[in-house]
Every structure is written in structure tokens, then in C-alpha cells.
């Protein structure tokens, strides 16, 4: 199922890319313009993606089934998404501390003291490393 969705996604991307490239100047063979390569690549990608999509839809052979712990995956991704959203609002140290703690609990780190200590250490340690030592401007 995942393979079908992903192949369909690549087909959609290729088609959108091809259609968008039609709005660009193609030029001619002796004076190619900005849309020249995108048009060529867009056509090739759409054809390949279509062949793959059809092949995936009709093929009998299944990929080796993998057990995905969806709950863990979604919660982990949710933590990362929350980090991206809140980073600018509450600042690097606080956002890192909170999200690090959440991710440690998602990965089933036992107890409260170790997750709290690790979160605090990572939050302040990375802030010091990136902002103070390496001069990166963190939110």
C-alpha cells in the first residue's frame, strides 16, 4: 500500500512539474531557454512514473512486509513538527527542552529524572555549542 501511495505521489509530482514547466520559455535547439531541460526531464519522469505506477498496481509480487509501529512513528513526527512550530515562539532552549522530553517518552525512556536531566543537558549544551561556541544565531 505504501509503495502504491509513494509511486502515485511521484507520478503526481512529475505531472505537476511538467505542467509548470510548460509556462516557461522553451527556446529552440540552438537557443534553449529556462524551460528546456525541465520540459525534457518532466516528460521523461512522467513516463517512467506512469510505467512504475501501472506496474505497482498490477504486480503480484509484494515487497517484504515490514512492521511499522505507526503510533510511535506518528508521535515522533508530531514531536518534530511541534518543535518546528514552537521554535520561533518559545525560543531554542525551551522548545528543545520540551520536545526532547516528549521524544524521550515516545521512545519509552523509563522514569522522569533521566529524561528531565537529558533534556536539560541537550537543551543547554547544544545552545552553548551552537550559539556561543559556533556563533550560530538560534531563535
Amino acid at each position, binding site marked *: 500500500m*505504501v*509503495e502504491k501511495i*509513494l*509511486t502515485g505521489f*511521484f507520478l503526481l*509530482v*512529475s505531472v505537476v*512539474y511538467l505542467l*509548470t514547466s510548460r509556462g*516557461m520559455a522553451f527556446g*529552440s*535547439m*540552438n*537557443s*534553449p531557454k529556462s*524551460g*528546456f*531541460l*525541465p520540459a525534457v*526531464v*518532466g516528460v521523461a*519522469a512522467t513516463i*517512467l*512514473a506512469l*510505467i512504475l505506477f501501472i*506496474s505497482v498496481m*498490477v*504486480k*503480484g*509480487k509484494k*515487497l517484504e512486509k*515490514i*512492521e*511499522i509501529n505507526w503510533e*510511535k*512513528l506518528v508521535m*515522533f*513526527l508530531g514531536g*518534530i*513538527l511541534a*518543535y*518546528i512550530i514552537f*521554535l520561533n515562539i518559545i525560543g531554542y532552549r525551551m522548545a*528543545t527542552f520540551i520536545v*526532547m522530553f516528549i*521524544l*524521550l517518552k515516545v*521512545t*519509552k*525512556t523509563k522514569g522522569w529524572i533521566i529524561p528531565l536531566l*537529558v533534556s536539560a543537558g*541537550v537543551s543547554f549544551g*547544544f545552545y552553548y555549542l*551552537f550559539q556561543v561556541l*559556533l*556563533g*550560530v*544565531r*538560534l*531563535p
Partner: protein
Amino acid sequence: MDTLALLLHGFSVSLLPANLLASTVGVIIGTLTGILPGLGVTGAIALLLPISFGMDAVTALILFSGIYYGAMYGGSITSILVNVPGEAASVVTCIDGYAMAKKGRGGAALAIAAIGSFVAGTIGLIGLTLFAPALSTAALSFGPPEYFAVAFLGLIILTNLSGKSPLKSALMVLIGIMLGTIGLDPLAGVDRFTFRIDELSRGIDFAVVAMGIFGVGEVLSTIIEPESKTVLQKVRFRELYPNKQEIRRSVAPIIRGGLIGFLTGLIPGPSATLSTFLAYTAEKRLSKHPEEFGHGAIEGVAGPESANNGASSATMIPLLALGLPFAPPSALLLSGFIIHGITPGPALMTQHPDLFWGLIASMYIGNVLLLIINLPLVGVFASLLKTPINILMPIVIIVTLTGAFAVNNSMFDLGLLLVFGVLGFFMKYTGFDLAPLAIGIVLGPTLEKGLIQGLIIENGKIGSLFTRPLSGTLLVISMLLILFMVIKFIIIKIKSMKEGESQPEI
């Protein structure tokens, strides 16, 4: 003689305290990335790119290349002691390395892997020292059609060698090229595929894509795997020395592995991994005791482990001489060059001799450092395998997010990182290889520039690209390879239809 003098000058650069420190740190980080799950060599270099902003260009590149070849050795530690390859290039080592460890000869296997890596790495470096300058000089006469042809052939070979399905790999190359066209068109100066999003005008940063697909994707794969207890084979210090018979049986495989690795490393694609399979097959065929393979034959460790290090040195040749990377780690090294305002290619050797020769000399030093550091510290590195994954993975994610933000100080990049992380995760499980996508992004602009300028030079006659000796030869080879792929695909299809079997992976 000139080469020797320049190499000696390179040693004087690479032995400066800051560069020596960078080399040492690089090989240690490389070894760690080879050992720890969820942190591949490409992800590690991508992560350190923003950190290197404040460094001198030579120091930064010495650090990155140290990570690259250090990881080749680090991967062998986990293969031998726990039967888990840290890197794809160490998969073959598991077969006989782990069998040796179970027999109590894990120390000897590790020592032979380290010595083999050192010898083969040096063989590769001698090749790099001799061939890279020669290729650089030859490449000075390259025009846009030649660059187009080299990039095109590289991508076609990559498509053939990467992953299980050439069709999927070809699509990934094209998607990579498509991503490479996002942003300001360097030839015409117009925005393409930016959809009025300002952040897209500067294009999609390759480091962010690499951190996403190789970094975040790998972490996601690691956290969903069921927890497994690591059974670590113990190694005592006195067992680190191979006996006379093991040394005698390893000499030829190490040299053969080094040569196979070097030659394979020149081929675009997953050359380090491919070289290990070739070396293993060669050793099994040449061995007087093929029945021992799979049950702890030292040749099965010596050959492949030498080959992957020989290949990692050879991979640097197209990057340094032509500015064209054909493997994800060298593509990131290219990013490392670019963020420091340096364009690798034919002019690198003459315009930045300190960097060119300093980098090559640092690799000789790094190989010695790997041997000195890794043999006595193998126990320490092995104990890192007990690091709790549940704590390590969130830390890797936070450092990746921080690193991705630091590339352009952009929140938009963090969104891209997440998107490519999820994409990389699902691609891995559905048979889409990540390397062609990454290389497509990097080589796409070279391909476009070469094609557009080549067509303008040749007055739009595409056939003229075939009449120039070098570009013509390379393009004919590319066409033959495409034809080969199509015929192979049709034959397999017809066969499977006749036999009424399920369709093969295409």
C-alpha cells in the same frame, strides 16, 4: 618528481596543528558513525557542514574526508562483533567476520580489517595522487559537451548499479534533477518552480535534503524497529594480534582488495559497497579453501574491508579533478567546498594547491591515525554499541534540526528537512534508493549547464555532441547502457509472462 614535491608541501599543510586535529576528530567521528545506528556517514557530514562555517576551508574538508574513510572502518567493528553492519559497505564483512568472532578470533578479524583498511587506503591514495592531477590537467580542455557527457554517463551508470530496480533508480535521478532546477536559473536569471515562495528562490539546499533523507529518515527507521538485545562478542587486548597463518593468508587478499576497491571506486554509484561484494567473490574463487568461507575465513574479512577503503579514496578522484561527485558522501564534500567559496574541478590543483595537496596528504595521515586509534580503542568503540537507542535517537534528531536550521538560519528549511525525512523513510522501505535522488540534485545543474551551453556552441545540432571525440564516446556508451537496460527489462518481462510467475522488480 613534481608530484612528490607537491605532496610533501601537502604534508606540511596537513601537519599544521589545526589540520592534524581535524583529521583526528574526523576519523574518530567517522568511526563512531560507522558504529552507531541512525547516524550514517552522509548524515554526519551534512550535520557538520554548518558547524564548519567558522573553520578554514582546508581544515573543514580534512575533517569531512576523515569522517568518510573513518566510517568505512567503523562499520567493520559492528559487523565483526555483533553481526550488524554499521554501513552498507560492511555487510559482506558480517559473513566471515562474525563467524571468526564466535570462534574467539574477533580480535584478529578487527586487526586484519584495520591493517587491510590502512594498506588499501594507501594504495587508493597513491592512485589518487597519481591520477587526480593527470585527470585535472586533461579536464582543462573539457568544454560544456564533455561535462554534460560525463555527468550523463555517471547518472546512467548510477541508475544501473543502485538499488534493486533500475526503473525506480532512474525515476529517482530524474526527481533529483527536478529538485535541482528549483530556484533561480543560473543561466537566465529567472525563478523556476518557486510557486511565489521566496525561500525557494535560493533553491533547495542539498545539505538539508541529505540531512532529511539520510539523517531523519534513518532515525525514523531505527526507532520503529523492535528493540533487540545486542549480543556483543568480547575481545581481549591480547587477542587483537592475528597469528602468523592469519597474516600470511591476508597479505594477498588485502592487496587484491585494495586494487579492486580502487578500480571500483572510479565507477559512479555505490562503489564502496559494490567493491566489497566483488572482493569477497574474488577471494572465494581464488582461495584454496573455499569451503571455509562463511565459517570464519580471514580472507573474507581482509578482501572486502580493504576494498571499501580503496574505493573511498578513488571516489575522491572525480570530485577533485572534475568537480563531479558520484556518491552521496562526495556530493556532500562538494557542498563543503562550495560553502567555503571553492569550486572543485580542473582548476583546483592550480588555484588552491594548499587545499588540493593538503587534503590528499591528510588522507595518508588519517589512515595512519585510524590504525593507531582504532586498534587499542576497539574495546571502547565496541562498548558504544550498548548506547541506549531510545536516548540516542532523540539527541540525533535535535542535533539534526539544529544543524539544518544553522545552514541558512531558515525555519522553512526545517519544514523541508521533515518532508525529506519522511520521504526518505518511506523510500527506504519501498525499494526506492536514496543515492540516485541525492546525486541527481547535485549533478542536475552541471547536466543542464553542459547541455544548454553545448547546444548553443554546436548551433543546436545535438548530433554534434556525438562527433566530439570524448563527449561522443561517453554518450555512445550511455546510449548502449540505456539500450541494455531496455532489452534486459523486456527479456525479463517476456520470461516472467511465459512462466506465469509474478512480475519481477523493475
